[in-house]
């Protein structure tokens, strides 16, 4: 503390001197600072925009759960083009209940597996209609894809064993289908069945990855679904009816920890490959996606950083240029100070602080600009931006650094002037 006070009382007069020097040449100082203002401003703004873009992607991946492995059924691509006969045929593909059992029993590190069947069905309530994604699943679904319960309850084991006609809706679906009426206990028609609404959960929207939850979902007990709808599904297409038989649309495999996720995914793939001759499944590992997204983000940051670095370099060179001109202009003053008894190091400190006042002043103004730009972008374009607190610290550090680096040469040049020569300078 004492040391700090000591060194502050040594530097304070120089800081004041530097500040008054800057103030004496207002216009020039302002123009010199502009380089720093935009350099620092662009660092903060670019980081905020970059962070905003990747933040969204990362969030949606994170929501999938970093301990999970998502295995989904995909329709295999047929070798020959579809004929009328083919399209009328029943397409059988995808994951089976047996697959779930095999994964649970043979893959090491599995905590639980959650099966689900997803089919788009028409939902009806009185006059209203809405196409929903009906998810036939088990209660533990809500453990691996957690989200807040807004009203009522989620599915439970009782619903399973009694094959109850109950459903849990998402907030969005409820708003669309039931409007403002009392929701719990109402009956809605899903396809050929009538279901009692027992709960509402919050839905998360957006996300580029195959999210297990969507905006308008209806969750029903798996046994109820199989009982009511079976596993075959038909939908009209041009020139006929396409029927397919898919036992499970998705198996969510929850591992015991993030460290076994990647090995687990490989094991799952090996197990499935043995029993699936066709490529009718797909494995997504949110953790890998997360890592990939983070890697992309890092690359992105490096590119942005390089661009920002160049603009700071330009700003710094501008400052150095002005300081060199200032040293020449103030040659006589330097001579006088030296003649009176100022050591070389005092002259260095004076000019260095002078440069730092310029660069830090520019840096602080740049901070304001850098915060204002992302806010304006978000305001006018609704593009998300995240202003990083560390980027402000970084910008401040950079402006001090630029001041020292680009101020050093002019300052050393000022100090190395011969006093007598400097005094004779007109």
């Amino acid at each position, binding site marked *: 503390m004492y040391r700090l006070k000591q060194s502050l009382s040594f530097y304070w007069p120089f800081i004041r001197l530097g500040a008054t020097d800057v103030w004496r040449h207002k216009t020039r100082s302002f123009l010199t600072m502009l380089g720093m203002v935009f350099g620092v401003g662009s660092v903060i703004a670019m980081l905020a925009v970059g962070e905003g873009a990747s933040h969204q992607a990362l969030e949606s991946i994170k929501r999938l759960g970093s301990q999970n492995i998502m295995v989904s059924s995909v329709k295999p691509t047929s070798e020959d083009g579809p004929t009328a006969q083919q399209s009328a045929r029943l397409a059988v593909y995808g994951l089976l209940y047996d697959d779930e059992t095999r994964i649970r029993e043979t893959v090491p590190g599995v905590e639980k597996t959650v099966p689900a069947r997803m089919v788009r069905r028409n939902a009806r309530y009185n006059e209203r209609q809405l196409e929903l994604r009906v998810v036939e699943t088990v209660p533990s679904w809500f453990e691996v894809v957690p989200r807040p319960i807004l009203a009522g309850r989620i599915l439970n084991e009782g619903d399973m064993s009694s094959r109850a006609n109950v459903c849990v809706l998402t907030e969005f679906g409820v708003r669309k289908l039931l409007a403002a009426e009392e929701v719990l206990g109402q009956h809605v028609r899903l396809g050929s069945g009538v279901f009692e609404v027992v709960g509402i959960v919050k839905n998360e929207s957006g996300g580029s990855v195959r999210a297990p939850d969507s905006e308008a979902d209806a969750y029903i007990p798996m046994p109820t679904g199989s009982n009511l709808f079976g596993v075959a599904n038909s939908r009209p297409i041009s020139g006929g009816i396409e029927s397919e038989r898919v036992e499970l649309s998705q198996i969510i495999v929850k591992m015991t920890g993030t460290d076994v996720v990647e090995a687990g995914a490989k094991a799952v793939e090996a197990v499935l490959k043995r029993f699936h001759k066709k490529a009718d499944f797909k494995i997504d590992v949110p953790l890998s996606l997360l890592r990939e997204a983070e890697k992309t983000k890092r690359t992105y940051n490096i590119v942005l950083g390089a661009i920002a670095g160049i603009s700071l370099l330009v700003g710094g060179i501008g400052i150095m240029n002005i300081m060199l001109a200032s040293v020449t202009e103030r040659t*006589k*003053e330097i001579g*006088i*100070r030296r*003649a*009176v008894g100022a050591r070389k190091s005092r002259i260095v400190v004076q000019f260095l602080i002078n440069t730092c006042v310029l660069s830090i002043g520019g840096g602080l103004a740049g901070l304001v600009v850098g915060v204002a730009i992302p806010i304006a972008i978000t305001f006018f374009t609704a593009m998300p931006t995240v202003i990083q607190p560390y980027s402000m610290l970084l910008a401040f550090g950079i402006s001090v650094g630029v001041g020292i680096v680009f101020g050093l040469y002019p300052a050393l040049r000022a100090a190395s002037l011969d006093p007598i020569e400097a005094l004779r300078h007109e």
Partner: protein
Amino acid sequence: MDNEVVKLRDVKRHYSVGGETVRALDGVSFTIRRGEYWAIMGPSGSGKSTLLNILGCLDRPTSGEYWLNGVNVAQMEDDELSDHRLKNLGFVFQSFHLIPQLTVLENIEMPMFYLGVPQAERTRRAKTLAERVEMDHRLQHLPSELSGGQRQRVAVARALANDPAVLLADEPTGNLDSKTSVQIMQLFQELYEQGKTVIVVTHEPDIDAYAHSHIVVKDGRILTCTV
């Protein structure tokens, strides 16, 4: 011996300008003791300012020895010379050399800034000195707003700011009327009586009369030296 503030032995200062050698000082030897009052005289261009610059540790001799308080200046570091100027020397330059961007008050304060004198004390002392040279009514003015004689008086006040043991003045009354001249000379006389060493370059016989030792320089050589 230990009284010797300055000792010059065959000091030369040559400039080479366009292949030609200008012998500004061409073999000067003399000794100045503590508490003496010296006047240096000589025609224009004879090398008086050059000599004073060397005495003031601003310039180094081309050849010859210069002893400062018993130490050979040639062996002193730049920082040591700076500190010597700061602590022991007061310099009134022939062309004043005030910092144009600073006010009268700030100019007088400047040496004390490097001595680490606190701001309040600096201002107080600078004001006292300004009063001594009758410049206290122009404290907030810039040098460019002053007359030649006024600038000269500010330069004198600045030279005294560090309470120097040795005062070097290069024609300190060159721009002053006889009344102000006398005031400045009385100031120097007071310093001399306080035991300070005073070295003045002058053309005026009046001032020369104050001094106790005299040097006349011509063409870079000492013509006469009376102690």
